[in-house]
């Protein structure tokens, strides 16, 4: 008969978790806002994006309270957390879009391939081409399908003539796995597409300028299950070439497409780790409470 030996507990917080999961301590550890420092592997040896002590204040109110996290190459990292936790704010820090908000103060540093994008003198717009963004609601330009992709190519000066443009547009659609679907109606208005198609077009548009990182804020939230599944499949394929940061309200979706998961709560990164471990054996009791309490 198999003889098993007990290995070391998988996480250092075992005792804490044990007390909490099986009742025991008198005081409720969730009652206090005091969080232990985040747990998990937030460092990556060769990060594409590195955030250091990222803090954001809106009109004096701190909504991001020091997030330190590396995002590796060719990985999909999902960011989960309750509503208002600061997920979208975190995402918008990564391309400096957050600064467009009024009364907003950003502290800390974000490195893209080792370059500090918040360093003085760095133009906020200059690296936008290197970081694409997809929003919760599809927002194609009210132009043709073709134009949605070609426009970015043109304004970033990536094409010099019409024929080059059309072949690049084709390439982008092929890369996004949308060529077969869209090739015959390239000049149809983008707004005539279904919501799912529009969202995939928006992803193609984000790919057009050849970014290194793609930020996606709940890209499936306004879509039906089938269209959501197509987006998820697309995300999985894009991982080969891009770094993807995915904010997701659907834990199922995060579990399906991401390799790492970061849990943000009340502006703090509570825990980050491999997705399969986060969804089966999270280390931090708050993560456990969120993930188990949140299961759909």
């Amino acid at each position, binding site marked *: 008969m198999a003889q098993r030996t007990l290995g070391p507990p998988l996480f250092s917080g075992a005792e804490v978790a044990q007390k909490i999961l099986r009742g025991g301590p008198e005081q409720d550890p969730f009652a206090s806002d005091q969080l232990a420092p985040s747990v998990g592997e937030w460092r990556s040896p060769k990060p594409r994006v590195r955030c250091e002590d990222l803090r954001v204040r809106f009109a004096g109110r701190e909504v991001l309270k020091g997030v330190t996290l590396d995002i590796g190459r060719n990985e999909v990292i999902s960011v989960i957390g309750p509503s208002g936790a600061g997920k979208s704010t975190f995402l918008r820090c990564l391309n400096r879009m957050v600064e467009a908000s009024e009364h907003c103060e950003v502290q800390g540093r974000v490195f893209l391939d080792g370059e500090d994008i918040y360093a003085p003198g760095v133009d906020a717009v200059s690296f936008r081409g290197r970081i694409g963004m997809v929003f919760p609601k599809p927002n194609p330009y009210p132009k043709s399908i073709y134009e949605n992709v070609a426009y970015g190519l043109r304004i970033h000066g990536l094409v010099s003539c019409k024929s080059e443009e059309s072949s690049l547009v084709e390439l982008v659609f092929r890369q996004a796995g949308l060529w077969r679907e869209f090739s015959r109606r390239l000049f149809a208005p983008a707004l005539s597409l279904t919501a799912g198609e529009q969202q995939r077009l928006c992803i193609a548009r984000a790919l057009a300028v050849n970014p290194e990182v793609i930020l996606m804020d709940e890209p499936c939230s306004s879509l039906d299950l089938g269209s959501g599944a197509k987006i998820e499949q697309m995300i999985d394929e894009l991982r080969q070439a891009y770094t993807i940061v995915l904010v997701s309200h659907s*834990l199922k979706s995060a579990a399906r497409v991401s390799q790492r998961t970061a849990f943000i709560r009340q502006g703090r990164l509570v825990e980050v780790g491999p997705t399969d471990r986060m969804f089966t054996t999270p280390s931090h009791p708050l993560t456990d409470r969120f993930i188990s309490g949140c299961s759909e």
Partner: protein
Amino acid sequence: MNDRGEGHTFKRFDGQLSNLHLMVTKMGQSVHQQVQDALTAFRTQDIALAQKVLARHSDIDRMELAADAEIVEVIARNSPLASDLRLVVAVSKSVGDLQKIGEEATRMALLLEEIRLESSTPLIESLMDGVDRMGVLVLSHLDTAVGLFDQWDEQKALYVIAGHQRMDGDFQAELHRVMTCLLEESLDVKAAVRLVLLAKSLDRIIHHALNLAEYAMFEIYGGFDLSSEA
């Protein structure tokens, strides 16, 4: 721990989850009773008690089916994750082991029905004492293991997990004694086989108890290092 979930949906299935624990505890108690009665029946040559054990076999099977149905429902309705997921997996696996312990009790009872001890000699008495000692150890391990689903206690879990080593020694010693008696021809083969089979059943039960403790451990910590599996 009243206000669980802070996500989109509040946790409505806490009751269902603690019910799963309760099912393991109840099934564990029934199975424990079966083993205890089977041992007593053997010891006292009480055919009526052995028949009771056999009659209750279907109850254990029914409990397993009911637990399975409940588990499937919890998964289908709530897709549990994190510690909830581990709970469901642990319960599901435990129920399987408990059912197998129930089968061992039945096997032990059948052993008595099929072949009765003709005469009790001092030798058989002393061999029975050995089996009894194993029985006491097994029952206490089983009891402790099942209790882990009611209240977690790491020390107790580790005690049960280490139990098979204690038991392996006992089983080997018992086997050795029976063999010696057989070689000296002071024990008839039927009685010897019965005793060995009985001891083997107890040996298997303690391994199931070990599994139960491991499942409880899995539920709490999320895993075992299986790399050292022999």
